[in-house]
């Protein structure tokens, strides 16, 4: 008894140490390199038009001076961020409060990941238990991998608002696993309110919370459960929108925040595939291809949810990977969330076929991307194709990772039916 308690205490102590270490590292980066936050904020890999901290400051400045931030082409972020940041002491005078807020958000996300890993959901969901589940990483390792991932650190220092979405998504998953469907739906509604695309995570999240209902208060009918929870999401979203309406005084924030993502009117370069495609697109086909790209993005939701019905968290992970590649304004912040979710599936790593290739591609593009961007924008010795080529390789590498993880998870499921096939060569027909 004592031993168990002592073990738990050391785990708690270790985790606290991890969090403190991560916080100190970030604070040190913020304070010891005063030029670093602004440098990273200006990077296109971190800040997109819909998440940039500089644009947030501009929106805040306009909001504080009674100019509607949505009556312009700069600010495309959710209205409720404005009062939140207006409550903080002015960034110009006391930046440390903003730093602390971003560090806290990172720690909250890490703690959510810790809880997800500790719940054992990745290895053993309600409907399926992996034979390999013992070979997994604990919450401490998962949280450490997230907190000390260079992509996460760079994101935190660059302060895009996508970290709030990341945090909301992770907490939605935690609530769903712990049997609190309403909490999960509220968190998801917040994520969707902040950046719209998390709404596509609703079907797998519904299934996850349906599977993980507390025995005492379970709703048997899936249709009834889905209807109730979709109602919760809709009403929370409606509430958030009406609060936004009260704050900004008009509905013009809708086209300015979500319309921009739907129509891609701002073509600022980023790590995704959309911007250059729509720079070069012929005007008459623009709306057609916008529809195709959005349709493509949402096509995976249904297929994955049905095919991997027994492991909804896998579906969530894969969708996060797909969004990190194919959403209109992706950044490395989405990549860090996806990588953290992938690390939950340590037990299927041996079934993956291209881990070395994927790791090489990610390293290659991480170093070559900024170099080629510099050649295009500053040195003038390269052109836009240089950076475009790197985003293409990045997208291909990530989609290889997503496909490979899908393969590994499905093979893991299949080997429960055919235990004799473990380690054998297989093919798909």
């Amino acid at each position, binding site marked *: 008894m004592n031993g168990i308690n002592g073990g738990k205490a050391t785990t708690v102590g270790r985790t606290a140490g991890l969090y403190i270490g991560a916080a100190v590292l970030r604070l040190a980066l913020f304070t010891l390199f005063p030029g670093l936050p602004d440098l990273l904020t200006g990077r296109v890999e971190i800040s997109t038009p819909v998440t940039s901290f500089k644009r947030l400051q501009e929106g805040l400045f306009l909001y504080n001076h009674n100019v509607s931030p949505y009556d312009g082409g700069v600010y495309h972020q959710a209205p409720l961020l404005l009062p939140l940041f207006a409550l903080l002491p002015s960034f110009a005078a006391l930046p440390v409060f903003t730093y602390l807020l971003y560090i806290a958000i990172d720690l909250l996300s890490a703690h959510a990941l810790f809880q997800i890993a500790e719940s054992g959901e990745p290895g053993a969901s309600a409907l399926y238990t992996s034979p390999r589940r013992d070979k997994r990483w604990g919450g401490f390792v998962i949280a450490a991998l997230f907190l000390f991932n260079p992509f996460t650190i760079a994101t935190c220092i660059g302060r895009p608002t996508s970290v709030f979405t990341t945090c909301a998504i992770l907490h939605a998953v935690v609530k769903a696993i712990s049997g609190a469907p309403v909490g999960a739906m509220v968190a998801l509604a917040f994520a969707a309110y902040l950046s719209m695309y998390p709404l596509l995570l609703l079907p797998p999240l519904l299934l996850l919370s349906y599977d993980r209902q507390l025995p005492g208060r379970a709703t048997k009918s899936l249709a009834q459960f889905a209807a109730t929870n979709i109602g919760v999401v809709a009403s929370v979203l409606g509430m958030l929108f009406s609060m936004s309406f009260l704050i900004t005084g008009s509905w013009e924030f809708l086209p300015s925040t979500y319309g921009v993502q739907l129509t891609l009117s701002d073509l600022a370069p980023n790590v995704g595939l959309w911007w250059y495609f729509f720079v070069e697109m012929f005007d008459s086909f623009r709306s057609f291809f916008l529809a195709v790209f959005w349709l493509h993005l949402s096509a995976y939701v249904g297929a994955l949810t049905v095919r991997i019905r027994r492991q909804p968290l896998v579906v969530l992970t894969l969708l996060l990977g797909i969004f990190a590649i194919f959403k209109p304004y992706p950044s490395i912040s989405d990549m860090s969330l996806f990588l953290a979710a992938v690390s939950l599936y340590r037990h299927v790593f041996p079934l993956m076929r291209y881990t070395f290739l994927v790791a090489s591609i990610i390293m290659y593009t991480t170093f070559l991307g900024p170099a080629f961007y510099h050649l295009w924008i500053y040195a003038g010795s390269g052109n836009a194709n240089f950076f475009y080529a790197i985003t293409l390789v990045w997208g291909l590498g990530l989609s290889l990772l997503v496909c490979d993880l899908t393969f590994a998870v499905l093979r893991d499921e299949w080997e429960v039916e055919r235990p004799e096939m473990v380690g054998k060569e297989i093919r798909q*027909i």
Partner: protein
Amino acid sequence: MRQLLSFSLLSFFSLCFAVLTAAADYHEQLVLRPLPLSALLASFNFRSNTTLSAFEAHNFRFFPRSLGQILQHAGTRELHLRFSLGRWDAESWGARPWNGAREGGTGVELWAWLEADTDEQADHQWLTLTNALSGLFCASLNFIDGTRTTRPVMSFQPEGDHPNATDTNTHLLYGVLPHEVVCTENLTPFLKLLPCKGKAGIASLLDGHKLFDASWQSMAIDVRPVCPPEGEGECVLEIEQTIDMVLDIERSKRPRGNPIPRPLPGHELHCDTSKPYHSGDTCFPADSTANQDWSLSQVFGKTIKGICPLTDPNVPPVCLQVPDSRSVYISNGGLEKKNQDGMSRCFEIEPETTNFELLLPRPEDLPADNLQAGQQVENIVKPETPLLYAERSFTGHGQERGGVQTILRNPSPDKEVEFIYMESLPWFMRIYLHTIQARIEGGPSDHDPLVQEVYYRPAVDRARGTQLEVRMRVPPASTVFLTYDFEKSILRYTEYPPDANRGFDVAAAVITILSPNKNGTRSATYNLRTTSLLCSLPTPDFSMPYNVIIFTSTAIALAFGGMFNIIVRRFVAADEGPEVSVGSLKQKLVVPLRRIFARVKPGPR
């Protein structure tokens, strides 16, 4: 006899006409002012009036009919149109002519007060106006669309009197085309608006080759209603056409006989002998300020072809601003009148004169090659110091982001300057207003803030440009830096002009200096404009839209295909399931082919 009768009738009618048109007069004047550094400012001014009632009855008289009909059609109350080129060198040339009120930034500028009930109607009328003026002046004014139009709040005040106008039905719209190249095709329609069409009077000096070769030139058209003080007659609609140009005298004189610039022979060089290194084989060029000697035919290429018979005889057509000590030669038919101030003189031309020539010789009392600094100034009128010097430039490098810095210097030792700084920027320069900063060179000021009021209307992508108006002040004898950051956006490839890597022109900033009135309010007294800027945006590769579409589509197809391939298909062991190999494929192909061959081939039966 008959001829005599008709002549007397004509003169009778013309007398009647003169009486009738006491209000509807016309006058023109050319003011020549030598400037330092061998420059000559020539200001042409043409002004005609018509009463508002006559104008509304389509009785245009001296008012150009083509323009008048456009103004009536578009409901224009007041109109200002500018065509400009070059840069006014305030450091050497001093204050601007007309206090800057008759000049524009590089390119074309247009602002007008339109009478309309709603903003939409005003926009519609503005569209009508710009398109009509575009045709009239052969300029691309029709490209002044929503992204280039702003509604200034503080910078512009109506010059005319609008007694029965209210704020709600009068709309000020301002459009600017910094990329427009002003050239001869704009001058020709400008001259056609004049009553004498450039055939007689001072307008006969205007020639595209000289005008557009000037260091700086600005053509202006101003139409405004002017009302006399109450109870003293009728309101008139006044059209004022102005051309200001700064000619480089050396350059203007050169093409005569020596059109190709060649180095002067050594003995013709004017050297500054006061330099310590001056010797037989070294020469520092002497300041040519006092060497100004020119004649009208030298600088303009021709002489004045008489006077326009319609012009008001009380206004002398040519004035020259040089000190009285200098002698000026004029051709027969001219009459010199020196003004009281001792710094200018005017010339009247008799109606019969067909060619009027004016010659300003080199000051005779001083040997040309041996001038001293103190004596140089006396030979020309010393330029007036402007109220404010302004320079604007880009900061930063790269095609991602940058900053704009305006250096505003107040030369006055004891007077503060208050002014409105207005920028209208294209939408693809996304400015960050929270970075706007005004600082005094050499430390912050401890009293009032420099920026007193900001009006800002942010840009909307592809729909509206940024409008920024800042009311600020510069303390005496100090320099203020106004800076802000902006981000350059990448455009769709069809939105780039053919010369995309040249960059995009950014219109001049308009600075309106305010001075206190008698009744406590402040009104504009002096205008100046900075130079326009060239902003280079990141460019995509224009040669490969197909390649990009194909590559991206392939990447997406690979991801989609790879994913659904895994999702849709079943797992089997490598040796299970139907055989798929080259052998089995061959079988599948060969068997039907054999059957066909068997049918076609006439085999033994």
